């Protein structure tokens, strides 16, 4: 069914040789390749596309270029897509949204007649009395919320991102953008030309520009050919530049890709939004902007209706009437809101075509056809000299009405960059000022409208950009183009006693809603927006901003400029989250031994950004693995991958001095070949990190830090040394080194079974010593450590050799049945030994005194980071103390995070708690009241379901108090 199709040359964008069927609301419609869903439906006389947000009024396309919310439709996979942007070649099944029953007979249409009971902001004034009734109403109102329905089961489609780098990005491929691109490219600049339509040309594709339509086509062909031939220009069509970020960083969405464009300058040739006219029932399907009617006819070859009327606030609208007439559509009248048009030749042209002209008049009310789904007639009233509506002039039957009250610059990108949009109330002219450096305007966004001026303005903006880039000499004579024609009607707003003159289609707001907002005291435009929701809908105020500003200005006795518009924020158009997310990318860090762990069936868990083995074996038997692994270390030998430990290399004559200032301990006299425990307290005196410093040479230390703390430590080191200016190089070598800890009474035996160049005897390599040497060909830094409380060697090797080392140790330990252990067993082992874990046994308040680290503080030295705070907080009365505890095995086992209660108040909490096979019971660490810190004191722990458990304080460590095991 293609009765509405016009013959060529109308319909430049469709391919009549290939017809395509689509299904909309279960019915089949036929269109052509090149059609959008919206154009194909209108070609089948289906103007009705959607139901409005609040009143469920029937709505059809307004702009036909994806700038209004009336065309929002539901796709099987996605809600809220714009039917005038969807090519029918890609989308065959489409439904309308936001109705109950059918689109044609929406049961919620009742809300329209109940609209009188729903004044602006009504929900603030009702539904809460009596107390508690809101819970009831909320459920009902919530069901009415939202437009489309999200498909909750789809898997994300493939999307990706690409960086582009250009000298100049030009946003908008209309005449201004084309002219700018050519000028810039011919001067040698690399140009990216971005347009959101499938074909370049912008208004050159559809706007008539002159009475005889002589200039349009030749200009377009000429420019387009040159652009496509120019190697300096890259063209992106069907691509939306959706934001402006600092330094011309531009996200450009095209298909399933987001380009991230870095440009040195950008030219905004984004055009303007044609503005509608506010009168009763101005939202009926069939009423569209002049540009939308032009697009229908010229791009898609679709007659909007058999009879068309035009409501003009400027000369441009007359050209739409001429276009339609020349396409064979009956134009039943041009209604001009002005007393006379600027170009008298237009009147002659109308007369020549026998198109009636109703000057100084307006459409006061539109009437729908009998099902109410499309425009059927318009009431024309005369205007008086003040622009007020007077008597009825005539009524015209027509199925479509083209309206234009003016053009508002597409200011969004400029304003995102901090520009100001101004409006001169006298001349009804817009201007954009205070543009970010390197941004230039061209064409109608710059309020230039006549074709020759637009082309000149494009070239001028390119010369400005070239000069900005140093690609063209400064030329003081290059003044730019001044505004030429007036396009904006000052007051295209006609209040009707019965209302329903829509200012904002997205949010169903009428004149009285805006005015009543100001009467309620919401006088600032931002408050009007927030109270009435004007401009908050999917089209973000493209068509409501100007009439709202006019109404608010009038109601509050200010100028439109003083009233202003609400802040422009990215994005310009709604953007699918999948495009922003891009390809799935989870940057987890893996140690060089990751494959070894997985081969051993390790249960991997996150540790900061790393993944580490929690234990080896199926998670269901977690307790068994942990206890077995721990027992292996206590009785035999185990090994653990500790590559995630932070590694920091400090070199320089001041290295020892630096550590002395940075950590709490003393380091100046630390012997070479020895390690020393390090604790970092921040400026609040809080214990923030710990590790070990090994002195490799007089000027050389290798310092470890916690897995999650190392980045902060390195940053803090660099920050402090920026002040201290000590002669020391600080390098984070965490990834450069892998580390394995071999622990257990048989640790030495395992290493002895390798080709180890280091004398491992206790005399030659005692506890806390540091040695360097080789295991076979692998160079190794080795430390005697005791974190788990057994004889232990920590081997640090270059990461690329880690797997070889692991295999070597596993082979050497095989006769002894060496066993890998994970983080959980390590936690249990160190708990038995009473060693704290920063972040688990400390929190954001812990000072060294609370966790028994007094011994790690050197008070002889003059300074360390956090010293002043540590002195103050440790001198104050203590309010809690970390202690070891045991609980009776018959009690519920406390969990980490359970509270310690004293006399009904919270005094602390359990930080670590495990069943220890070695100690033979449940042991843990907890913060308790200082009065209860002595061994054998009892304190109350509140466990699950509020069950109180008495815990007994126990001297630390639980295991091997004489520290004999680690010094074997």
């Amino acid at each position: 069914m293609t009765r509405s199709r016009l013959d060529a040359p109308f319909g430049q964008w469709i391919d009549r040789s290939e017809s395509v069927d689509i299904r909309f609301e279960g019915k089949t419609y036929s269109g052509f390749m090149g059609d959008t869903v919206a154009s194909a439906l209108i070609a089948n006389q289906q103007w009705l596309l959607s139901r409005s947000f609040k009143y469920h009024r029937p709505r059809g396309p307004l702009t036909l270029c994806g700038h209004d919310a009336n065309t929002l439709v539901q796709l099987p996979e996605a809600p809220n897509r714009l039917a005038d942007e969807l090519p029918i070649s890609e989308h065959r099944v489409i439904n309308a949204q936001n109705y109950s029953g059918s689109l044609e007979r929406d049961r919620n249409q009742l809300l329209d007649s109940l609209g009188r009971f729903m004044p602006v902001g009504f929900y603030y004034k009702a539904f809460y009395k009596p107390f508690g009734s809101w819970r009831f109403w909320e459920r009902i109102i919530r069901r009415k919320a939202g437009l489309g329905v999200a498909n909750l089961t789809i898997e994300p489609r493939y999307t990706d991102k690409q960086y582009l780098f250009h000298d100049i990005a030009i946003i908008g491929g209309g005449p201004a953008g084309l002219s700018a691109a050519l000028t810039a490219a011919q001067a040698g600049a690399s140009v990216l030309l971005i347009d959101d339509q499938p074909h370049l040309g912008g208004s050159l594709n559809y706007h008539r520009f002159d009475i005889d339509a002589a200039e349009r086509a030749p200009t377009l062909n000429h420019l387009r050919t040159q652009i496509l031939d120019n190697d300096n220009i890259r063209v992106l069509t069907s691509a939306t530049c959706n934001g402006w970020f600092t330094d011309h960083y531009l996200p450009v969405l095209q298909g399933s890709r987001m380009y991230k464009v870095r440009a040195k300058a950008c030219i905004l040739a984004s055009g303007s939004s044609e503005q509608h006219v506010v009168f009763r029932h101005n939202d009926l399907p069939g009423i569209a902007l002049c540009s939308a009617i032009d697009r229908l006819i010229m791009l898609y070859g679709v007659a909007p209706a058999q009879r068309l009327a035009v409501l003009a606030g400027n000369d441009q609208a007359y050209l739409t009437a001429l276009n339609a007439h020349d396409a064979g559509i009956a134009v039943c009248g041009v209604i001009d809101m002005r007393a006379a048009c600027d170009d008298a030749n237009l009147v002659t042209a109308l007369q020549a075509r026998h198109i009636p002209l109703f000057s100084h008049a307006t459409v006061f009310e539109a009437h729908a056809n009998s099902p109410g789904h499309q425009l059927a007639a318009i009431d024309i009233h005369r205007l008086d000299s003040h622009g007020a509506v007077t008597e009825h002039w005539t009524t015209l039957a027509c199925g479509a009405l083209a309206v234009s009250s003016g053009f508002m610059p597409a200011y969004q990108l400029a304003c995102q960059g901090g520009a100001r949009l101004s409006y001169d109330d006298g001349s009804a002219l817009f201007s954009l000022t205070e543009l970010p450096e390197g941004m230039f305007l061209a064409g109608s966004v710059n309020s230039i409208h006549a074709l020759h001026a637009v082309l000149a303005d494009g070239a001028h903006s390119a010369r400005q950009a070239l000069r900005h880039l140093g690609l063209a000499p400064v030329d003081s004579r290059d003044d730019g183009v001044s505004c030429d024609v007036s396009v904006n009607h000052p007051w295209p707003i006609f209040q009707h006693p019965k209302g329903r003159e829509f200012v904002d289609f997205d949010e169903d707001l009428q004149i009285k809603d805006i005015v009543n907002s100001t009467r309620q005291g919401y006088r600032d435009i931002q408050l009007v927006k927030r109270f009435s929701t004007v401009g908050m809908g999917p089209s973000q105020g493209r068509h409501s901003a100007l009439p709202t500003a006019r109404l608010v200005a009038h109601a509050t006795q200010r100028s439109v400029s003083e009233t202003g518009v609400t802040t422009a924020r990215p994005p310009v158009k709604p953007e699918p989250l999948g495009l922003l997310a891009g390809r799935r990318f989870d940057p987890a860090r893996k140690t060089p031994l990751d494959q070894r762990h997985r081969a051993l069936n390790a249960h991997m868990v996150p540790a900061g950004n790393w993944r580490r083995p929690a234990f080896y074996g199926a998670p269901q038997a977690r307790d068994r693995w942990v206890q077995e692994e721990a027992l292996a270390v206590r009785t035999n030998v185990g090994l653990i991958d500790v590559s995630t430990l932070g590694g920091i290399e400090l070199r320089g004559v001041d290295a020892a001095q630096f550590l002395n200032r940075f950590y709490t301990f003393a380091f100046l006299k630390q012997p070479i070949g020895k390690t020393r425990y390090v604790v970092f307290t921040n400026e609040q005196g809080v214990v923030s990190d710990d590790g070990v410093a090994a002195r490799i040479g007089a000027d050389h230390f290798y310092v470890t830090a916690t897995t999650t703390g190392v980045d902060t430590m390195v940053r803090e080191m660099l920050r402090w040394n920026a002040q201290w200016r000590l002669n020391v190089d600080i390098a984070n070598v965490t990834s450069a080194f892998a580390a394995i800890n071999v622990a257990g009474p048989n640790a030495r035996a395992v290493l002895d079974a390798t080709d180890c160049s280091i004398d491992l005897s206790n005399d030659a390599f005692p506890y806390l010593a540091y040695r360097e040497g080789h295991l076979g060909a692998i160079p190794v830094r080795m430390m005697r450590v005791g974190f788990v409380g057994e004889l232990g060697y920590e081997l640090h090797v270059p990461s690329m050799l880690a797997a070889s080392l692991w295999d070597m140790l596993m082979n050497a330990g095989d006769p002894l049945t060496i066993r890998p252990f994970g983080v959980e067993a390590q936690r249990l082992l160190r708990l038995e030994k009473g060693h704290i874990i920063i972040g688990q046994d400390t929190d954001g308040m812990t000072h060294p005194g609370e966790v028994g680290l007094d011994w790690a503080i050197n008070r002889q030295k003059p300074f360390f980071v956090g010293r002043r705070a540590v002195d103050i907080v440790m001198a104050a009365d203590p309010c809690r103390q970390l202690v070891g505890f045991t609980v009776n095995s018959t009690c519920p086992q406390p969990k980490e995070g359970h509270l310690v209660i004293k006399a009904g108040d919270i005094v602390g909490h359990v930080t670590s708690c495990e069943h220890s096979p070695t100690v033979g019971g449940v042991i843990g660490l907890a913060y308790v009241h200082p009065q209860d810190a002595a061994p054998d004191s009892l304190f109350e722990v509140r466990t699950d379901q509020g069950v109180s458990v008495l815990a007994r304080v126990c001297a630390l460590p639980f295991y091997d108090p004489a520290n004999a095991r680690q010094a074997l």
Partner: protein
Amino acid sequence: MPFGLLKYGLGKDYPFEREPDLPATPTLKQHYDVVIIGGGGHGVATAYYLAKYHGITNVAILEKAYLGGGNTARNTAVIRSNYLTPQGVRFYSESVKLFERLSNEFDFNIMYSQRGQLTLAHTDATVRAFRQRAEVNTHFGGRTELIDPHHIAELVPTLNLNPANMPVLAGLWHKDGATARHDAVAWGYAKGATQRGVELHQLTEVIDIIKEGDRAVGVKTNRGTVHCRSIVQAVAGYSAVLAGIAGFKLPLVSYPLQAMVTQPVKPFLDPLVSSSALHCYVQQTSRGELVFGGGSDPYPLYNTRSTLELKESLIAHAVEMFPFMSEMQLLRQWAGITDMTSDYSPIMGLSPLRHYYLDAGWGTWGFKATPICGQTMAELVANDGKVPDLIAPFALDRFDHFKQVNEMGATAASH
């Protein structure tokens, strides 16, 4: 149908016109008992409670832009009390209680909606911290519990329990978690305050603080000079700047905090869901939009510009949590300035200037405290600087004595 709407529908006039919600800005007088700098939620709430409970109505709220246009307008309207420290829990719980009755108290619907807040734990360190928070909350009468993944799946069936390969181990389910129409909170307070005689001065910017010795006695504004007995500063992200004008330093660092919103879709998500490991939280508003928030920008700045980087990372994580959201569409992103303290608790009470009271350091947790802030600040002012117990832990001088109230939560770490 509620009576008020019926009256409107059957009458001819807009029914509420005789009593506008907000009066127009009056002429600025030369003297007030109390000047409140900042017409956001906290400022107008303070004025409201001064008038309501203390009979102090000779009060001017000075707002440099428009009512509630700063962080009151920009926050994502999360109301909760599941904090870590007893001081914090006590304070925020009072706020939740006040919120519940505000609509009826104001005669203005703030659309308080208690839908619960679910925070996800992806590491055992977070599970520990959550257990502690749940216990502390329960201790103070709040409704917070640690729940397992099965329970999470029942509450939010659409959630991916293995986002970004960070399996969800547990959740902190805070039934008291709620949201409200954030603007309406400020408007309701302003309506109540102005009806009781308080003056709201919009577009009135404080340029200087007038002092006599160690005492604040007035302010200079772009509309003239005002003298007063007491001054309250409640200016959120600009706290340190204003304190600088008043002549003292606040231990604050200001960071932009960004948020974003999608187009509306039919409701499918009732609770507020957040994951600190993924730096992402999401809630579906009463309009059907999804609101996303995340971590602060990584560097201090006094600029409310948006960035692409934050949008990309935040949305990537949102799509990890809810993969089907990939076809939903983002409508708008924005930012506010947050003034962060080192212990993530506010600064309330006395300042180095006599009769100059502080309500600052509200970082990312200001909105949820609006009612209790107003109430306690009003009490402080009305009692000439006698600090209410509830806010005593938040005094500025705690930083001198290292008596911080740390709400950063337990830090995640492993060894």
